[in-house]
């Protein structure tokens, strides 16, 4: 139930983000969603793409330093308090979230948030036990 995320080190220089996206575009790899964490000097681009291995290979070949990380695509009720209810369950299970970002499109009638846990395996088990729906990679593909 885990989803593979590619992260990529981006220097804060004009054109570097564009070149990374271009590297994926040239291999016709679709980006489902992304987040860019930035500091004054560098950024970390995190991507969920249709084919993670091919995506990583494309970025590596373009000279980027990349890493594959396992994240969870967590279904969140698309109403007030929806995210809070899921986070409450993560709290109860004492799961540590490193970072999260929203999926760019709804899957079905519900919102999806990508969450990076420090212990992804334990997070899968605890969240599923608490009745939280996790979206399989294939479902993300179907949607995007």
């Amino acid at each position, binding site marked *: 139930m885990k989803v593979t*995320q590619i*992260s990529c*080190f*981006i*220097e804060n220089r004009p054109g*570097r983000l564009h070149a990374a996206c271009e590297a994926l575009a040239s291999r016709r790899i679709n980006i489902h969603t992304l987040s860019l*964490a930035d*500091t004054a*000097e*560098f950024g*970390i681009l*995190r991507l969920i793409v249709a084919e993670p291995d091919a995506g990583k290979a494309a970025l590596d070949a373009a*000279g*980027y*330093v*990349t*890493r594959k*990380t396992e994240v969870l695509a967590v279904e969140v009720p698309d109403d007030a308090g929806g995210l809070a209810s899921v986070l409450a369950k993560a709290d109860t299970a004492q799961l540590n979230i*490193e*970072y999260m970002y929203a999926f760019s499109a709804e899957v079905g009638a519900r919102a999806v948030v990508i969450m*990076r846990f420090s212990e992804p395996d334990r997070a899968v088990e605890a969240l599923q036990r608490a009745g939280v729906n996790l979206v399989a990679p294939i479902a993300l593909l179907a949607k995007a």
Partner: protein
Amino acid sequence: MRESWNDQGQGFHPVSAPDYLPTVQLRDLQLRRLKAVVTRAYDNVAPFRERMAERELTPAVIETLADIAKLPFSLKTDLRDNYPFGLFASPMSEIVRLHASSGTTGKPIVVAYTQEDLQVWASVMLRTFASAGVHRGDIVQNAYGYGLFTGGLGAHYGLEAIGATVVPTSGGNTDRQIMLMRDFGVTGICCTPSYFIHLIERAGELGVDLRELPLRVGIFGAEPWSEGMRECIEHGSGIKAFDIYGLSEIIGPGVGSECHEQAGLHIFEDHFYPEIIDPETCQVLPDGEEGELVLTTLSKRAMPMIRYRTRDITHIITEPCSCGRTVRRIARVARRSDDMFIIRGVNVFPSQVETALLAVEGILPHYRIVLTRDHGLDQMGVEVEVSPEVFSDQVSVMEALHKRLSHSIERITGIRAGVRLVEPHSIPRSEGKAKRVWDERTA
């Protein structure tokens, strides 16, 4: 790995015999050769004779080896001042080879060889390769630059003399180097250590794992390199990496080399007499103390060098080496007084920055030091390439790495540096000597 050189199973090459001379005989040989070379320089090289005359000295001052301390030093500026042929002790009719430095600061320096000099050079390079275990049957890729630089041709003739098969690729064209290394079944390589690290990186990108090739031994020199770089090379390519020492002003490569103990470099003392001096007071220091290496060519004919100040910082190791060689060793040259830069009044060596980076990352990242001046204040910037080993998807982890690098540099150099994490391959690679310092300070 047993040290063997040839197809007859002997433990050492006959040409290496002087490496094992009893000390009494070695000192006697050195004294006789010192008297002869000082006389030769005095008789034939006007600038040396004038410098001796200023001190009211003649070659007769040399009665013992210790008397060498009475002689004047030679400096790199002497070679520039007497450009091109002013320091030659042989007539041009006896000179068969010229080499010249790249000349980054004005005129190049020129060095010359007679036929006898070239024979000596080939023999000390043979001894260099023999001490690294290179032997007949080895296929050695020589990626030192061929041409005016002494590295390429110096290694070339030593390899031919020992009977190895030479692949004279010279520097550059990295992809072709890797292709030939794989296709020819190359077992040994000569180049600068920084270029070899570039070869390892590039081979990885091309899908070639050097550890799976027959490559067994590397003979690396022409620039200071650290134990950390050695680990990086040996681990990344599965070879044994040997440090060699030399400089064009003395002969080129072949002044000294590591043996299998990899514990200091044996100086070929029958041809090159080493002293260590305090670079400030110019007083000779006892063996074991760190200072500047000074070399005298004992047998050079075309261009004798008396007490040449190398600017390399090292010390002499007096303990006998377990390899059995009796010639003394110097510790690996990790820094040159020339490389030193002064920032806000503090002396800094690139090797200190290297140590600081290594302490944090475990392996040496590609880096460069950029010196700038901002409103009259000197700034040291260190750009460090992010490797897959240290990259994380978490900002907090990358910021912690950044902070640890900054602290480590400040702790070791005493200077607060502006560390910048940069993408892989964004720092230019060199195909010869690595350039680590970009001094962009303008007055």
